[in-house]
């Protein structure tokens, strides 16, 4: 774990000490090296499932795919930000990169934590760099409002989590994940215990986000700069899912009854946010709502607590992370050229930017869960486990899949096909950097088709 953390921290002196023209090159190269190094975590040799352990950090099949995803995204974030940051003075560029690196460090420590309190502190700590990135480098005036919504929604959910974790520490004597998975199930019957259960889960449900408390997400995504959107969609939402998976180990047997309202909210949310997507005019907002929809499916999969549900959740989290981030990068290429996110203004791009159209095509197909891509694997696992939990869920999940296909195709057709408006004929051609970015997003998705065991996690 230290092999990855120390190079990541050393990226900060790198950004501040390299001469001006080499900053972006060196940071991208070093973060890429760290990402490749993190791929070595994927080899699991230990029997108990926890490997590469230090005193407070370890990796296991649940956290490793998410860790690799996080490390993989840092070079991509830096690549994506190059264009819109370049007009700023060099020190501001350096502080931007430093914020991204700090966020990365906190995320690595969060995913690698073994003590739940450390996970909590890192979970909260990731909020600060994200908040600064959104409010300082966002694009519009509403970003202050977006930042406030973001911070307060997440904090209001996580402060009860702190109290709940402290109560757990009092009762069980430890909060180490290694030990908690072996404790016997607790006898939880009173109202106070039910409130404790809600307290444990609420923070992660807000972060996921669950449909009822998802309002911060479209605001934050629309206002954030590209790197902020990428890291939000890809990784920060997965923090919520990861936390839920860890916490539900100690929450049985209450979860059987208490999870009902949340599962229903999640399923209903899939349909509702999908329908909102069909009527959106703002491209980034569309992708944001599609994120809420997919994460609703993940939440449903985790809350029913079956092995296939967990597996499907992890696969969908990884695949959605890569694909959502890719879609945000594509939306950003449009935004950088036309400085507008309205769908109507950026139509008919296939005529002008044909190679980009290929990437749009693949990303949208992945979003709507085309076989054999891992998105489908995850969705299918979750849908089948939900079906075995209750046959009625097929109504909402099936309808949700249809609507997802609907809006993904809508997004593709609106941006690529159709008459080209006259004002877009003089757009810049696609940079190689953008093609590289898209390739690095989508090639792992395609490669994961060949070896999905890397992602399956604890249950196989």
């Amino acid at each position, binding site marked *: 774990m230290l092999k990855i953390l120390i190079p990541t921290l050393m990226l900060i002196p790198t950004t501040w000490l390299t001469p001006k023209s080499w900053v972006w090159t060196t940071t991208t190269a070093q973060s890429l090296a760290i990402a490749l190094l993190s791929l070595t975590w994927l080899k699991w040799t230990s029997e108990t499932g926890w490997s590469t352990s230090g005193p407070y950090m370890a990796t296991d099949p649940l956290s490793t795919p998410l860790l690799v995803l996080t490390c993989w995204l840092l070079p991509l974030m830096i690549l994506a930000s190059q264009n819109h940051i370049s007009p700023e003075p060099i*020190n501001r560029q350096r502080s931007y990169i430093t914020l991204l690196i700090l966020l990365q460090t*906190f995320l690595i420590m969060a995913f690698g934590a073994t003590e739940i309190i450390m996970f*909590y*502190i*890192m979970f*909260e*700590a990731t*909020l*600060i760099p994200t908040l600064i990135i959104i409010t300082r480098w966002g694009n519009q005036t509403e970003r202050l409002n977006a930042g*406030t919504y973001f*911070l*307060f929604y997440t*904090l*209001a959910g996580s*402060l*009860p989590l*702190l*109290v709940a974790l*402290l*109560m757990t*520490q*009092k009762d069980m004597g430890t909060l180490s994940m290694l030990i908690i998975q072996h404790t016997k199930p607790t006898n939880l019957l009173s109202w*106070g215990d039910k409130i*404790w259960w809600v*307290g444990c889960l609420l923070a992660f449900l807000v972060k996921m986000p669950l449909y009822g408390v998802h309002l911060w997400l479209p605001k934050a995504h629309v206002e954030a700069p590209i790197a902020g959107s990428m890291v939000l969609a890809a990784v920060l939402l997965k923090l919520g899912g990861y936390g839920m998976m860890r916490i539900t180990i100690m929450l049985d047997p209450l979860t059987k009854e208490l999870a009902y309202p949340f599962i229903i909210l999640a399923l209903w949310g899939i349909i509702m946010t999908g329908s909102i997507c069909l009527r959106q005019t703002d491209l980034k907002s569309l992708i944001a709502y599609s994120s809420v929809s997919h994460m609703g499916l993940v939440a449903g999969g985790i809350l029913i607590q079956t092995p296939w549900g967990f597996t499907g959740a992890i696969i969908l989290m990884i695949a959605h992370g890569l694909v959502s981030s890719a879609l945000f990068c594509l939306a950003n290429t449009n935004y950088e050229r036309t400085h507008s996110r309205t769908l109507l203004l950026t139509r008919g791009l296939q005529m002008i930017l044909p190679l980009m159209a290929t990437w749009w095509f693949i990303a949208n197909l992945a979003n709507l869960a085309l076989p054999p891509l891992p998105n489908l694997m995850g969705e299918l696992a979750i849908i089948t486990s939900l079906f075995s939990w209750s046959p009625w869920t097929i109504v909402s999940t099936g309808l949700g899949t249809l609507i997802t296909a609907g809006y993904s195709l809508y997004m593709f057709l609106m941006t690529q096909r159709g008459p080209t408006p006259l004002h877009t004929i003089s757009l810049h051609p696609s940079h190689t950097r953008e093609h590289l970015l898209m390739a690095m997003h989508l090639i792992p998705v395609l490669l994961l088709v060949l070896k999905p065991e890397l992602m399956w996690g604890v249950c196989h």
Partner: protein
Amino acid sequence: WILAWMGLEINTMAIIPLMAQQHHPRATEATTKYFLTQATAAAMILFASTMNAWTMGDWNINQISHPLATTTVTLALALKIGLAPMHFWLPEVLQGLSLTTGLVLSTWQKLAPFALILQISQNTNPALLTTLGVMSALVGGWGGLNQTQLRKLLAYSSIAHLGWMIIILQFMPALTLLNLTIYITMTSTMFLSLKIMASTKINSLALAWPKTPTLTTLIMLSLLSLGGLPPLTGFMPKWLILQELTKQDLPITATIMAMSALLSLFFYLR
């Protein structure tokens, strides 16, 4: 107790001329209000200690055991430092002072009463302390929401932090001291940075970015730390206090305190 009272009176006397240095009518008004409240509190302390000596026959500070006497002295000390519901003087007094004097009022002046509070901590009424603490945290949070003047903002933040300090007094006084120390450090940082930028309203803070970017970053970080966000140091006292409260089986109190921290965070964030 007599010596303690004398010390407190001398303290008040000494700071009165410092506060009235600016010959602005608001400064004079603030000085008068401060003098009145502190004198009342000191008189109450004297009264409580005399009552205790009469009924129990003891002048020792940490042997104060008559319940009426302990309650009175706790309320008097709360008035001295500005805990709710005796906090009404603090925003106006702080507003009338210059930034340096305000710094002294918020940090140094709290040390003496806290020394007394820590010494009487064993005999105090738990319900009273909990009420004072929770009310202070809530009042500090809600009161600061509509403020644009920085000094009043810092006054309400002081009230909220004092609430946190008082609530843990009955369980682990060491944590009160820790919270006090960290609070003094953070507030001194805030006051001194504001003095360097010579800004007293939120509007003038917004223009600070071009002047001194490093200092603005520091201010932002210290504001977030005052708000108690991990991983900054300001989180540590809050975390430990919540831990103690839950260990003593008071999760509801802990949750209320935590939520009121959110209120304060909102006005720090602006």
